[in-house]
C-alpha cells in the first residue's frame, strides 16, 4: 500500500507539473501572439485608459482628451478640428488613426519603447508610460491664413521653410472635424459614413494625398531643365521658337493664351507663360533630362514621408515627343501634390538646394524631456546656384510685372508662378487654379517661406480661374502671415 500511495502522490505532482509547463507555454512562450490577437481587447483598453499625448502647434496643444467613463476611457478632442485636421488626422476608437496621430501613435499612446524608463519596461510591467507630446513645425498664423483664404472652396495649401524643410502650413479644404470620429458610439460610425460618402470628400487630404495636373506652374521645372542642360544659356536672349507649335509627330497645334511668345526670351516666356516655348524646350532638352530634373525636385518618389506618406507626384519616363511636349507644360500625365509644388518653389528659393519637408519638429515625453528630434533628411542639390539665381529672377519678374501681381508684398522679394491646369475628358473639367511662390527678405537673402496653392473651384466662371486671381491672394496672405 505504501508503494501505491507513493505512486499516487507522484502522479498527482506530475499533473501539477503538467499544469505548470502548460502555463509557461500560455503565459510566456505564446503570450505575444495572444496579446497581439486583434480580438483581444486588452491592448486597446490599456491604450485608451490614459489621456493621449498632445499634438502641439506653435508650442500649445491643438488636441486634448476627454474622459468618457466607458471601457475605452479617454477620447480624443481637437481644439480647432477642421483647421488642423490635415495635420493631426483623427484618432478614433473605432477607425484607428491617421496622419500624425498614426505616424506618432506610439509616442502619443505611450507605447513607444523610447518613452520607457529602461528597455523591456512595457514587457515587464505591462503598463504604459504617459503619452508624449509631438511638436509640429506648423506656423499657426500661416495655417489660419491658408484656411481662411480657401474659405471652404475645394483646394489645398502647402507651405514650407525652404532652408530647413519645415512644413509651415498644410491645409486641405473642405475639411472635417476629427472630433466627430473620436470615441466609439453610433454617432461616430454615422459621422464616418457621412464623411466618406460626402461628394466634397472632406476627409481627403488634398495637400498630401491628391495630385493635380500642375499646368503652367510646372514650367519652373522645365525652365530648370533647359538651363541646367545648357539648352538655354541666357535668359534674356530671344529664343525664336515657333508659335503656334505643332506637336512632333502629330497634327495637333499648341497655342498661347497671350501674344508675344514667338520671339520671347526665356524670362519673357516665363512671365507670359508661353506654352509653345516650354513645350518645345521640353522636347529639345529630351526625355531623360526632363525626367531627371523632375525627379531631383521629388517627382516619381514613392518614399516621401513627412512622417505620413505623401502620394507620388508623377512625371512619365516613357513617352513620345508629343507627350513629352505636353508633359513639359504640366499636362498629359504630369501630376503633382501641392506639397510637391511647394518643394519646387522652395528649391528655387534656397539656391537650388532642396531640403525634404518634415512636419514633426520634435517629440518629448510627458514631462517635456526630448525623446527625439523630428526626422531630418539630407539636403539635395536640384540645380546649381547660378541656375537658381536665374530662376529667382524669372519668378520675381512674374510677381513684379506679370500674372503673379496679387502676391506682391511690400518690402519683401516675392517670386511666383501662376498656373491653370486643364483636366478631364477633352479638358472639359473645371481647370484648376495654381500658384506657387516664395518670399525672401530683401536685405539678407534669407527665404522665409515657399507656398503652393491649388484651388479647384467648380463654382466660379471658367474665365475667372486663373492662378493669379484665385490662388495668388491666398498665397500672399499665407506668406504675409509668416512674415509677421
Amino acid at each position: 500500500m505504501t508503494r501505491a500511495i507513493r505512486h499516487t502522490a507522484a502522479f498527482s505532482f506530475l499533473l501539477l507539473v503538467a499544469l505548470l509547463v502548460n502555463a509557461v507555454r500560455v503565459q510566456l512562450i505564446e503570450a505575444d501572439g495572444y496579446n497581439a490577437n486583434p480580438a483581444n481587447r486588452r491592448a486597446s483598453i490599456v491604450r485608451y485608459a490614459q489621456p493621449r499625448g498632445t499634438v502641439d502647434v506653435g508650442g500649445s496643444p491643438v488636441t486634448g482628451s476627454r474622459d468618457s467613463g466607458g471601457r475605452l476611457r479617454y477620447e480624443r478632442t481637437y481644439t480647432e478640428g477642421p483647421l488642423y485636421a490635415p495635420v493631426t488626422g483623427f484618432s478614433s476608437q473605432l477607425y484607428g488613426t491617421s496622419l500624425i496621430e498614426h505616424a506618432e501613435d506610439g509616442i502619443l499612446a505611450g507605447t513607444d519603447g523610447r518613452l520607457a524608463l529602461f528597455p523591456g519596461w512595457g514587457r515587464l510591467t505591462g503598463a504604459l508610460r504617459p503619452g508624449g507630446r509631438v511638436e509640429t513645425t506648423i506656423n499657426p498664423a500661416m495655417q489660419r491664413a491658408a484656411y481662411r483664404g480657401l474659405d471652404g472652396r475645394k483646394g489645398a495649401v502647402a507651405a514650407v521653410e525652404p532652408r530647413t524643410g519645415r512644413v509651415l502650413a498644410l491645409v486641405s479644404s473642405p475639411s472635417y472635424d476629427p472630433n466627430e470620429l473620436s470615441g466609439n458610439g453610433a454617432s461616430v460610425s454615422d459621422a464616418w459614413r457621412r464623411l466618406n460618402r460626402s461628394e466634397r470628400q472632406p476627409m481627403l487630404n488634398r495637400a498630401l494625398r491628391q495630385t493635380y495636373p500642375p499646368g503652367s506652374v510646372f514650367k519652373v521645372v522645365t525652365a530648370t531643365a533647359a538651363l541646367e542642360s545648357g539648352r538655354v544659356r541666357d535668359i534674356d536672349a530671344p529664343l525664336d521658337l515657333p508659335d503656334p507649335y505643332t506637336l512632333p509627330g502629330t497634327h495637333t497645334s499648341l497655342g498661347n493664351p497671350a501674344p508675344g511668345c514667338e520671339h520671347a526670351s526665356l524670362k519673357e516666356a516665363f512671365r507670359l507663360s508661353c506654352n509653345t516655348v516650354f513645350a518645345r524646350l521640353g522636347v529639345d532638352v529630351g526625355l531623360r533630362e526632363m525626367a531627371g530634373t523632375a525627379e531631383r525636385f521629388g517627382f516619381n518618389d514613392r518614399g516621401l514621408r513627412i512622417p505620413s506618406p505623401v502620394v507620388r507626384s508623377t512625371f512619365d519616363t516613357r513617352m513620345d515627343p508629343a507627350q513629352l511636349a505636353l508633359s513639359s507644360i504640366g499636362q498629359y500625365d504630369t501630376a503633382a501634390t501641392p506639397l510637391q509644388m511647394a518643394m519646387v518653389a522652395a528649391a528655387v528659393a534656397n539656391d537650388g538646394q532642396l531640403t525634404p519637408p518634415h512636419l514633426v519638429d520634435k517629440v518629448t515625453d510627458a514631462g517635456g524631456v526630448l525623446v527625439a528630434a523630428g526626422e531630418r533628411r539630407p539636403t539635395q542639390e536640384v540645380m546649381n546656384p547660378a541656375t537658381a539665381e536665374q530662376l529667382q529672377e524669372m519668378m520675381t519678374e512674374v510677381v513684379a510685372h506679370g500674372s503673379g501681381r496679387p502676391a506682391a508684398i511690400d518690402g519683401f522679394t516675392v517670386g511666383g508662378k501662376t498656373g491653370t491646369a486643364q483636366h478631364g475628358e477633352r479638358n472639359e473639367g473645371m481647370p484648376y487654379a495654381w500658384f506657387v511662390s516664395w518670399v525672401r527678405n530683401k536685405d539678407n537673402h534669407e527665404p522665409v517661406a515657399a507656398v503652393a496653392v491649388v484651388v479647384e473651384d467648380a463654382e466660379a466662371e471658367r474665365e475667372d480661374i486663373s492662378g493669379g486671381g484665385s490662388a495668388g491672394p491666398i498665397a500672399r496672405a499665407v506668406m504675409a502671415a509668416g512674415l509677421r
Partner: protein
Amino acid sequence: MTAPAAKRAAGAHPEGTPPPSPPLPKRRGIELALLMGAVLLSACGYVVVGFARAHPVPSGAAGYGAGLGGLALLAHLAVRLRAPYADPLLLPTAVLLNGLGLVLIFRLDLETPADPAAPAQLVWSTVGVGLFIAVVVLLRDHRTLQRYADGCAALALLLMVVPIFFPAVNGARIWIRAAGFSIQPGEFAKVLITVFFAAYLAANRNALAHTGQSVGRLRLPAGQVLGPVVTIWLISVGVLVLERDLGTSLLFFGIFVVLLYVATGRTGWIAVGVLLAAAGSAAVGTLEPHVHGRVQDWLHPFAGITAGRGPGQLAQSLFAFAAGGLFGTGLGQGHSYLIGFAQKSDFILATWGEELGLAGLTALLVLYALLVGRGYQAAHGLGDPFGSLLAVGLAALPALQVFVIAGGVTGLIPLTGMALPFLAQGGSSVVTNWIIVALLVRISDRARAPRPAPDPAAPTAPGGAR
C-alpha cells in the same frame, strides 16, 4: 505497511501495526504563526486591490482581516484541543487559499457592482470553517466513518438525484434552489462517495487482489466483491451524465481508479481505468453535443474569432493568462472581466493568472501541492487501511479538481465546469473543501500521534474477512 506485509496481514486485526517511531513534535505554534501569515497575506491582498483601483483602503479591509483572523483562530483552537498532533500545514494552507479566493471575488465584484458575490462567499466560508470545527471536535476517530459507509453511499446517491427535479442552469442540472440559496449537492457527494469507496475497498482489498478468474496474466477480481462498488459508481456516473456535469463524473472515476489501485497495489487497474476513461470520454465526446462543443472549443479556441463571432470564453481565458506574463498586471489591474460569464467560478484562475502572472500561478499550485502532499503524507504514516485509503481519496479529490479545471482554462484539456478548491465562487464547494481539510486534519492527527493503545472499541470493517 508494504504490499507483501499487507497480504500476510490478511485476517489480522484491522488496525495494522505501524513501525515504532519517536513521537513527532506537535508544531501547534508553527501552525498559529503560519495562520497569522495567511490572514495577513489575504488582508494585504484586499488592501492592494483597493489601492490599485484608486480607492483608499477598502472600508471592509479591517473587518475582513478580523473576520478571517477570527475564523482561523477558532479553527486553530479546535485543532489545538482536539487534534493536537495534526499536520500544522493543512489548516494554514486552507485559510490562505480561502482568504485569497475571497480577495479575488471581491476584486471581480468591482467589475460587476450590480451582482456582488463576495458577501455570500464570506458567509459560506464561515459555514465551512464552522463545519471544519464541528468535524474536528465531534469526529474523535476517523474510523467511525467506516460504520456509516453504506449510509454515506445512499446519501450521496440521493443528493445527486435530487437536482434532476430542479431546473437546469446553463445546461447542467446540478443545483438545488431553495429560499434564495442554491446548493450543489454533487459537491458533498464527492466526499461521501470517497468515504464509501475507502471503507468498502479497505474491507475487501484482499478479496479484490487474490480472488476471481484469471484471464491470461490479468487476474479479474470476483464479481460479487466488485459488484456493489461498480454498481454505485455506475449509478452515480449515470446520474451525472443525465445532469450534464461531466467534470464531476470524471472526478468520481479518477478517485475510484486511484483507490482501487492503492487498495490492491495492482497497476493493472490503472491500465483498465485509463482505457475505460478514454473510451468513455471518446463516446461521450462524440455523442453528447454539449461535450462535443467543449472538445471542439479546446481544439480550436479561436474558431469563434475567425467566424466573426468574437473570442469565445476559452480564447478570452487564454488572452487573460497571456496578458499576465511572468509577473502579472497586479491585483485589480487586469481585464479578466472580458471573460464575462463564469469569471468568478469556472474561470477564476484566469483572473489569478492575469493579475499575479506565472509567478503567482506557480505559488498557487505549490499551495495546492502542499495541501495534497500533506494528505498523502498522512495516508503514508497511518496504520489502518481505511484511514490510508480515505486520506488518499481526500487528497486526490482536490488534486484532480485542480488539474481538471486549471487544465481546462489554460487549454491543456477540454474544459469541464468545476470549482477550483477554495478559490472559486460557490458555497457548496467551499464548505465541502473545508470538510475535506477537517477530515485530513483528523487523519493526520492520528498518523502523527504517538502510537495509541489498541482501542478495543475499534469498529470492525463491514464485511471484513474474519
